[in-house]
């Protein structure tokens, strides 16, 4: 790590904080949404599913552009907060929530589909309220889905670039994250640092994906 400057380390810290916040927000917002998607018979379901999946196919610049407009002082979110959220850490969290949404929602949704409604009904019949049943029965059975969602959501946020650059800029200590740091280093021909951070990202991403696949294999969802 000798090749890393203090600025690089602060970028690592911003990346980790950003990914943690994003995953937390997505778990709170995404769990009910994923449950709804898994069990609803509403005709809105495919529309919502498509909207959730959009960040997978959309160029990050498109998403980044709209978020920049929305978060800016005259955008709806900026006006709501009564200040510009663009180029702030908060703005970056909001942007990342949208950008990483499919990576949290989709594993949760498929886990909830696999669990089905049967254990929930059994818990209700045993005097558990819906929330109680969800926390004590559904969540433990769907644990694998939660682990996948957390790991993928975290890793994907760590790895985002385009959206972060457009919405956050690359303000050291505030919105400069690892991926944008690499870009900055390359711009000024600091290949040693770029190499170090890139190698870190590569290994980190591989280990994360490996963990997800091992978890999926080791902990299949049992519903008796």
């Amino acid at each position, binding site marked *: 790590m000798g090749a890393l400057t203090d600025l690089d380390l602060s970028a690592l810290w911003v990346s980790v904080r950003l990914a943690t916040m994003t995953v937390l927000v997505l778990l709170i917002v995404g769990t009910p949404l994923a449950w709804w998607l898994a069990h609803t018979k509403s005709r809105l379901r495919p529309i919502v599913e498509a909207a959730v999946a959009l960040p997978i196919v959309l160029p990050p610049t498109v998403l980044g552009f709209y978020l920049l407009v929305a978060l800016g002082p005259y955008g709806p979110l900026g006006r709501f907060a009564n200040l510009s959220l663009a180029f702030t850490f908060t703005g970056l969290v909001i942007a990342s929530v949208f950008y990483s949404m499919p990576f949290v929602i989709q594993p949760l949704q498929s886990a909830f589909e696999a669990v089905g409604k049967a*254990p929930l*009904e*059994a818990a*209700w*019949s*045993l005097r*558990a309220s819906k929330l109680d*049943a969800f926390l004590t029965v559904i969540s433990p*059975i769907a644990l694998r889905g939660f682990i996948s969602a957390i790991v993928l959501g975290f890793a994907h946020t760590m790895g985002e670039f385009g959206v972060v650059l457009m919405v956050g800029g690359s303000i050291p200590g505030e919105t400069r994250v690892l991926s944008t740091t690499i870009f900055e280093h390359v711009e000024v021909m600091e290949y040693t640092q770029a190499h170090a951070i890139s190698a870190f990202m590569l290994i980190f991403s591989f280990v994360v994906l490996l963990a997800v696949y091992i978890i999926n294999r080791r902990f299949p969802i*049992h519903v008796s």
Partner: protein
Amino acid sequence: MSRLLARFSVRYPTFHLNVALDVPMAGITAIFGPSGSGKTTLLRCLAGLEQTPDGFMQFDEDLWQDTAKGLCRPLHKRPIGYVFQEPRLFPHYSVRSNLLYGYNRISPEERRISIERVIDILGIGHLLDRRTHNLSGGEQQRVAIGRALLTSPKLLLMDEPLASLDMQRKQELLPFIRRLHEELHIPVMYVSHAIAEILQLADRIILLKEGHVAGTGPLNEVLTSLEFRGNFGSHRVGGVLDAHVANHEPQYGLTQLDFKGQALFVPFQPVAVGQPMRIHILSSDVSLVIGRTDSPTSVLNILDAMIVEIREINHASVDVLLDIGAPLVASITRKSLMNLGLKPGNRVFAYIKAVALNEELVE
């Protein structure tokens, strides 16, 4: 005696459930009907598991649902135990934790049924520390029943709890179901499409056909009714009798039963004198004789009977509904009916060629 009042009208893509029930709830009430008649849906409506835009449900004084008043108490606030077709045990808990899941969620004053009692009745003491996935199907279902009982329900709903089990496991579990009702006095609503289970378990029966109630009443009355015999395909059963063991004749390998003062012989049963025993008789095993002839007969079981009604079944055969202290149907040929000149009100003797024990589960 508890009373259940219920009314549901729900349209599904494939059928329309439209039922109105006003039934006493004591002992085991079977909901019987062919596949697709809406048995499970009805049970789910009673529990509040189905969306019912038009529904009413009252158990004794407790109003659980009245959509006209916008009232529908959620399942977790109804004192109902529900046993599903599959055990639905929680895989992340041990057997003990599964049993205690509902028990821990009711207040101590509500706990009328103790853990020891349930473990004893269901014979699951040796399983408590096991994980659920290495239990046999029958063991899993026993734990599921125990788990439901430990919420001290006022009403136990069971949806074909034996359907997923093989014949041997079914035989294992049936006495448990009978016992839990006899010992804990919880009224049971039991869905099944297997007439053999119903013959063994039910005290009353609700017949369901294409989403509506085709008949309800005490088991034997319904089994011998025209509606049942005409439409439910299980027309072989002539009647079910609740008798008592009167005497054993080990030298002949026979047990003598007493049914309302009349004697019936069955193959030897290791059951104490005075104990109840339920038997059923196939309508084709009943022959009718006018006046007891003096000539000896090999038939042991001869009952006094009065003809209540004669029903045309087809060109060749008729059903004769008898009163032997309980309703019993004899299937005889139309030719015999003509030869004997049988009429309602006639006194006859019913010669019963074979008595089937309900423990012998016949599908």
